[in-house]
């Protein structure tokens, strides 16, 4: 059995039916010294007591940068008791101007035993009205997916890196989407994880001289840390989709695509120690691009080398792989993620 739920960080225990009234009282107590702020409903689903604690810590950090109503939903279906417990809390921090406290509320629920089918109802009853709902689902989706739960979700956040069977999970998502909830935007933190790398690579091709390298690309080598194979596959999908490459031969970690015009392009994936994607090399007939993660700092060292001898270097931010910065990047970026869907369509068969 896992550890028991440490409720201290979750704040005041409240009766589920009294939750709205208790939140009002909370703000009445705080209103003299602080300002409540909220731009979104940010619901987080997790499993078990440890995840509740970790998610609360993360929400505390998250609310420093993005005002929201945080709704933490924990589930322990193996519990012998069928009960739903609830707590309220406020995360406060000094505003940038430093003059006043800015506070966001956290509402936490713990669904034990066979109460999991009531999650949608409880979540809907406790949304901050008129604000969009972002749901971060940690871990695997249950089969079948609770379509009612997803009905009002604007952005569904998940991390395909954590899935043992990604193809099955993506299949579940497609099934739920096909049931008519097309407004839902899929936000894969595994895609966000490569955002800075994609930006760094793209930036090197803002210089028109470097575009010749893409036009004669022949080999892409991506080195990834253990556990980040799926991140590397999404990167393959991105490059292939954006360069309009067609899959020719799909061998694991050594696939061959065909560029418009018939030129072959090979993608090689290597597992090495390091942080997520540690290195990406693009080789072409006219030169090469090397993007190497700096192990000491938070940068990518970029080197572009032309056949005629010119070499240019650049240092670009590599971002963070921690959950809170990834979530903040994802939420700040927004958008419909059409490029992701194209990349996924190519990468999915490799998962």
């Amino acid at each position, binding site marked *: 059995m896992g550890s028991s739920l440490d409720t201290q960080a979750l704040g005041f225990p409240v009766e589920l039916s009294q939750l709205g009234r208790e939140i009002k009282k909370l703000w009445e107590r705080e209103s003299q010294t602080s300002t409540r702020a909220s731009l979104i409903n940010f619901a987080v689903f997790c499993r078990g007591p440890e995840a509740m604690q970790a998610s609360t810590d993360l929400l505390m950090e998250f609310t420093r940068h993005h005002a929201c109503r945080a709704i933490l939903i924990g589930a322990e279906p193996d519990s012998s008791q069928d009960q739903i417990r609830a707590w309220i809390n406020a995360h406060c921090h000094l*505003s940038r101007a430093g003059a006043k406290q800015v506070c966001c509320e956290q509402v936490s629920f713990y669904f034990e035993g066979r109460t999991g089918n009531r999650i949608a109802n409880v979540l809907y009853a406790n949304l901050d009205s008129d604000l969009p709902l972002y749901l971060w689902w940690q871990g695997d989706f249950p089969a079948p997916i609770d379509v009612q739960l997803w009905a009002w979700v604007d952005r569904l956040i998940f991390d395909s890196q954590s899935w043992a069977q990604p193809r099955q999970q993506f299949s579940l998502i497609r099934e739920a989407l096909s049931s008519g909830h097309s407004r839902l935007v899929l936000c894969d933190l595994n895609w966000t994880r490569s955002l800075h790398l994609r930006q760094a*690579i*793209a*930036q090197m*091709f803002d210089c028109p001289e470097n575009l010749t390298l893409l036009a004669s690309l022949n080999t892409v080598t991506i080195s990834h840390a253990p556990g980040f194979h799926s991140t590397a596959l999404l990167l393959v999908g991105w490059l292939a989709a954006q360069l309009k490459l067609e899959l020719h031969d799909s061998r694991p970690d050594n696939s061959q695509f065909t560029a418009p015009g018939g030129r072959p392009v090979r993608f090689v994936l290597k597992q090495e120690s390091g942080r997520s994607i540690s290195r990406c090399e693009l080789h072409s007939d006219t030169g090469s691009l090397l993007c190497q993660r700096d192990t000491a700092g938070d940068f990518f060292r970029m080197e572009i080398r032309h056949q005629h001898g010119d070499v*240019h270097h650049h240092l670009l931010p590599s971002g963070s792989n921690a959950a809170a910065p990834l979530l903040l990047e994802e939420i700040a970026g927004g958008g419909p993620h059409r490029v992701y869907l194209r990349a996924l369509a190519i990468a999915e068969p490799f998962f």
Partner: protein
Amino acid sequence: MTTHHDRAANPLREGLSNRPMPQPCTVVIFGASGDLTYRKLIPALYNIASDGDLPAALSVVGFARREKTDDSFRNELEEATRKFSRQGINEELWGSFRERIFYHKSEFGDLEGYERLAQRLNALDSARNTRGNRLFYLSVAPSEFGGILEKLAAVGLNNPAEGSWTRVIVEKPFGTDLPSAQTLNSVVNHVFREEDTYRIDHYLGKETAQNIMVLRFANAIFEPLWNHRYIDHVQITAAEPLGVEARGPYYESSGALRDMVQNHLLQLLCLVAMEPPTDLTADSVRDEKVKVVRALRPMKPEDVAHNVVRGQYTNGAVNGREVTSYRAEDRVSPESMTETYVALRLHVDNWRWADVPFYVRVGKRLPKGGTEIAIHFKAAPGVLFNRDSAVGPNVLVIRIQPDEGISLRIQAKRPGASVKIEPVKMDFHYGTSFGKASPEAYERLLLDAMSGDATLFARSDEVECAWRFIDLIEQAWHAHPSPPPLCQYPAGSWGPAEADALLERDGRAWRRM
């Protein structure tokens, strides 16, 4: 525009950024040993690099008279960036960034110095792949513009190579009156095309100034009310508790009207009063802004006496500290007639704003600092709750600085058995809702100039129209046989009593900030 062409040509850009990307270039700063370079420009470029938005191929060349080496210049800039960068400094990134900075010693009038500059820029293009793109930043007094531009042209640095561009950023003040602005425009446009000329007004780089257009044109609820049928009047205020500090000589030749109203406040007025542009391209937006300046009702000398109040601070107290009068400030004439405060009643003579006064005030040594635009709506009809005693109007306030945000004052019933109505404020603070700090105005403006987007820069006709309007007031003050008086106000007060009377005559009052 090259920018959009380049973006389209890079297939990997899709979905990563919705703004034009800065292009490889060399930024040449004239007057590089000045305060602006150390406090604003280099920290801004460093912050752009820190955000990952600086092009891989970018060099910065400081051009100034003082003796310095590349290394000593870099060391000085490092110290300044540590102090003034909004996100501190990262040693590794600074190490990479400093290698892009170079110092070029020359007198502004020395042609040979420009010839050496041209050679150096060509060498940098080859070494750093900056493609012959050059952005010249004139961080010098306007009196130096002509000489610098003439020398740039003499060595051909204004002419881009095939497929490259050259642009010039000009710092304010852009002229001191219409003739001098026309001369400067002519000097600049003799050397650079108007579309390559970027006249900087840092107010336009501020997040809230940019948000005015978003507020008006991305929300369906405001635009139907944004006219003379629903708006009673508009107040624009720029208040400063500071005096002239070390800028006495400059201020003596400028005054509040030229220093603040001609550029910053008229720009804000344009953003509030303009018609929706057909699209968001630089010229569409600036076309609409210039129409507003053209529609400003010109003032005859007697109109100036009636609609404009000028003031100068006397001894007083600010922040609980005693401060001296303007005339006792360092390097200020004891008989100075320079205004440190001005309040104006303006009219935009077009269909939308018929009979809606725009009250604009700016002053030094006021009780607190802040720049804001307040839209005062007309009162509700005098029936029902307004029948016996008028309740206050709705006021929409756009705070430009500090504490950027938007608030709306509405009327609400006070809880209880009787009907008592109280104003309440709905308040949005950028700092509260968005944890991320806004980029500095110079960051945004430098990025835009490197990307070829001139939307947030003033165009020559805008500048000239603004001077044409301001000159009428200046002439009434300084060239008329019986000019209106220079009113006095104690430092730490909200300006002269005559400024209050300006609104009281219309049955209105300045908003309490």
